[in-house]
């Protein structure tokens, strides 16, 4: 009865034990996750350290600072109690920084430079490249057999002329003949007091040796010996002289002086420029060029109109067809809906650029399937008549784009409660009225943002235009490199990258302009969508 076993746990003890167990459990789980956390952060820090080290050896101080700050932020965020939102947001923010902010910022920076063909590096590099390619071999001069000599860290050329004369010289002393050279097979291979370098030795100091110029006589205009491979020396004269103090290049043949006039290249008084130049900041020049240069300004208006028409019509046609099909295939009475739906989505599974290429073949005037089979061999110029080409572009884009609209509309339609339709029907509304007054407005609330993004996408739909018509057809008599189906982005591509010349500065400026246009359209459209939402 009252023989209470002293060791039997009381209710209180039980509670305490349970709590203890809970704490232990919690703590051990905490320790495990803590270890994982520390391990992961350690990996992050190790990689950051490595990146810091690399950045430091490369003297990339901006990269260094950015990596340092991000690594510090990550450590602080994950080792501080609390700051829960930061723990969630940090990874996303880091990605945003790398893939969005950095890219946009860099584009913005490039837009204010003349970076492009002929201006793709620093002034230092340009000087080096100019001096390098200004070395001209003296016509009909012989090849000298060469042995590179070393004495106390200084290098000399020991050369044997084709007539057997042996001479020695270095950077500061012109060639002078020597008599006591060690010969081997008619070629001087050594000189007392000097060490002859073998090929490995030459390679070890190839930077210095490749830069050596040994004057052939006291007169610098006679030229100097240089070696391209360490075993032969040739006589060169330099056609350009760089005056470091004055910062000018002088053509030794004509005497023309080229100076840095602030346009990113050595320029003569006549306006003639030496290429390569270097990249400089040009301010808003690229932006003014975008509106004033004849090759751009001429077709700009018509191209802009067509770009808007193309983007707008593409969205409308794909949306209309997608919505229509979505409604049809949403009808429960239809048999085999799933199969049809799969078939409908096929064009979406097809890579867009491939689809465009295939369509270009199908629409070929003489050999395409469309003319050959569907139109019984008629020669309809689908891609070579301006208006038909525009139609073809819209048609192919409809084919490529409707499955997406079909998918999103199907999803949106299914989320509209059937009760609304039923209630309307009971109230005596006709099916079309139900669609127009109830389904469409509800649908638009969720679809409108997608329509706007689809507009933005098509506004820059470079792939389609380039794969289908390359912007053509072009009118050869018009004298501009812009065709009937060129949209802004493909026109920019043609202007900025014609042939081998590329103008990244202009291209960046244009992308910023296009970005602003698309952003404005998007902002206005989103405002409208908000109104739509309020309405409901």
């Amino acid at each position, binding site marked *: 009865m009252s023989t209470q076993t002293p060791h039997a746990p009381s209710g209180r003890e039980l509670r305490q034990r349970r709590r203890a167990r809970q704490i232990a459990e919690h703590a051990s*789980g905490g320790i495990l*996750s803590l270890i*994982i*956390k520390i391990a*992961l*952060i350690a990996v*992050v820090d190790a*990689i950051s350290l490595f*990146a810091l080290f*690399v*950045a430091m*050896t*490369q003297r*990339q101080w901006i*990269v260094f600072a*950015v*990596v340092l700050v*991000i690594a510090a932020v*990550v450590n602080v965020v*994950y080792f501080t109690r609390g700051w*829960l939102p930061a*723990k969630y947001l*940090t*990874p996303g923010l*880091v990605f945003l920084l*790398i893939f969005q902010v950095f890219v946009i910022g860099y584009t913005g920076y490039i837009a204010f430079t003349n970076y492009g*063909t002929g201006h*793709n*590096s620093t002034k230092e*590099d340009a000087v*080096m*490249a100019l001096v*390098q*390619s200004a070395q*001209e*071999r003296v016509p009909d001069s012989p*090849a000298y057999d060469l042995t590179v000599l070393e004495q106390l860290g200084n290098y000399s050329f020991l050369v044997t002329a084709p007539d057997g004369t042996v001479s020695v010289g270095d950077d500061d002393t012109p060639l002078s003949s020597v008599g006591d050279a060690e010969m081997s097979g008619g070629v001087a291979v050594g000189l007392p007091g000097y060490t002859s370098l073998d*090929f490995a030795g*030459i*390679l*070890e*100091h*190839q930077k210095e*040796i490749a830069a050596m110029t040994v004057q052939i006589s006291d007169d610098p205009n006679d030229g100097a010996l240089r070696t*391209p*491979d360490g075993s032969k020396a*040739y006589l060169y004269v330099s056609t350009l002289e760089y005056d470091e103090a004055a910062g000018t290049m002088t053509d030794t043949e004509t005497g023309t002086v080229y100076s840095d006039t602030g346009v990113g290249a050595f320029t003569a008084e006549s306006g003639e420029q030496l290429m*390569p130049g270097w990249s400089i900041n040009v301010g808003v020049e690229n932006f003014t060029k975008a509106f004033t240069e004849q*090759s751009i300004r001429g077709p700009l208006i018509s191209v802009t109109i067509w770009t808007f028409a193309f983007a707008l019509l593409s969205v409308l046609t794909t949306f209309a067809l997608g919505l229509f099909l979505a409604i049809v295939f949403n009808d429960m009475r239809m048999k085999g809906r799933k199969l049809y739906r799969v078939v409908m989505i096929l064009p979406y599974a097809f890579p867009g650029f491939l689809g465009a290429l295939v369509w270009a073949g199908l629409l070929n005037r*003489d*050999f395409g399937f469309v003319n050959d089979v569907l139109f019984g061999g008629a020669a309809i110029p689908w891609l070579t008549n301006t208006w038909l080409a525009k139609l073809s572009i819209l048609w192919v884009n409809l084919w490529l784009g409707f499955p997406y609209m079909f998918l999103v509309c199907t999803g949106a339609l299914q989320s509209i409660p059937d009760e609304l339709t039923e209630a309307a029907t009971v109230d005596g509304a006709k099916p079309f009225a139900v669609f127009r007054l109830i389904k469409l407005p509800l649908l638009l609330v969720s679809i409108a943002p997608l329509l706007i993004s689809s507009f933005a996408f098509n506004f820059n739909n470079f792939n389609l235009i380039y794969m289908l018509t390359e912007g053509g*057809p072009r*009118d*050869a*008599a018009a*004298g501009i*490199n812009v065709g009937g189906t060129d949209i802004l982005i493909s026109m920019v591509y043609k202007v900025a990258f014609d*042939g*081998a*010349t590329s103008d990244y500065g202009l291209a960046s400026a244009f992308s910023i302009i296009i970005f602003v246009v698309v952003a404005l359209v998007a902002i206005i459209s989103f405002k409208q969508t908000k109104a739509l939402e309020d309405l409901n």
Partner: protein
Amino acid sequence: MTVKKNPILALGAMTAVAALALTGCSSGGSDEASEKDGSTTLTVWVDADRAPVLKDVAAAFEDESGIKVKLVQKDFGKIQEQFVQQVPTGKGPDITIGAHDWLGDFVTNGVVQPIELGDTAGDFQDVAITAMSYDGKTYGVPYSIESIALLRNTELAPEAPASYDDMVQMGTDAGTEFPFLVQVGEESDPYHLYPFQTSFGAPVFGTNDDGSYNSDDLQIGNDGGIEFANWLAEQGAAGLLPTTVDGDIAKEKFVSGDSPFLITGPWNVGAAEEAGIDLAVDPIPAPGSGPAQPFVGVQGFYVSAKSKNVLAATEFLTNYIGTKDVQLELYKVGNRAPALTAAFDEASADPITAAFGEVGANGVPMPNIPEMGAVWQYWGVTEADIINGKGDPAELWTTMADDIQSAIDGE
């Protein structure tokens, strides 16, 4: 709770920082030349087809000289742009493979340096050295030359045509769908039509004494050019140069025996042979009074302007790439005629290579000056319009020449 969720977040953060670190590396790391002195490493950019050949050459070179060659495989089509972008940053290779018509762009951007071939320059075919030269200096070691020629289906046309009219006649007699085939396309193909144009004495640019092109001397609009334009209009009206025939269609029609002739390069020989067509290669018949000279494309190797291993690079190119054996190996993987005369003579055992080589040796290098960009812009469209009878041929041709001139002046 918060503690338990952290690993996932930390994982995300790790990926982020890893990505950042990688960006850091790619924007700053892997500078081969900055390795310590003593262990010289040459970095060579090469395309996938030529990489296996160069691998053996590199191994032999390393054995003999102790210089390591690191081959980096690149997509040939992307090399030009990447080389121009990466050399200034110091991350580019020491040597890159390339086409000769990139040279103008390379020199304008200051990313290549002249190479001294010394006395070995005479061992290469003249057209290859001219192609690899810019402003009187040689910038690359060539390894192959290629050009278009006339491919003949010997079953349909047993004899080589003596003239252009002869070819059309033979083609018509053969009773096939097309008397002859050449790829034109909706914006025309000036490269494939160029032999016809040169036969009228209308090259794009005049040449200097040393064979290089003079960009101040635009020749395309001369009287020969007008004559060519009129000829184009005639052929277009006769339906001989349909602009709907692009490269793929031309090849397909020739392979299926729809024409006895196809004007094309060595790249289509394989497909025709596979289809069992008995091939012969002839010079392109000239419609004008001069010789029909096609453009010649030359491939070779360039040395970066910022290479810190110039001597090693020169040694590798002149004494290894420039040898007969290597040139023959490179010929075997691409079927392009070797640029080294000795190697070419040996490769000429194959009649098709010999015939292509002969046509190429009489061709003219494709201009490697940057002004060529302005020419391509207007050239094809105008040809297409003339062929399709859209306006007076002489007028269209003159407008084109003026447009090209003003585009060159504007640059």
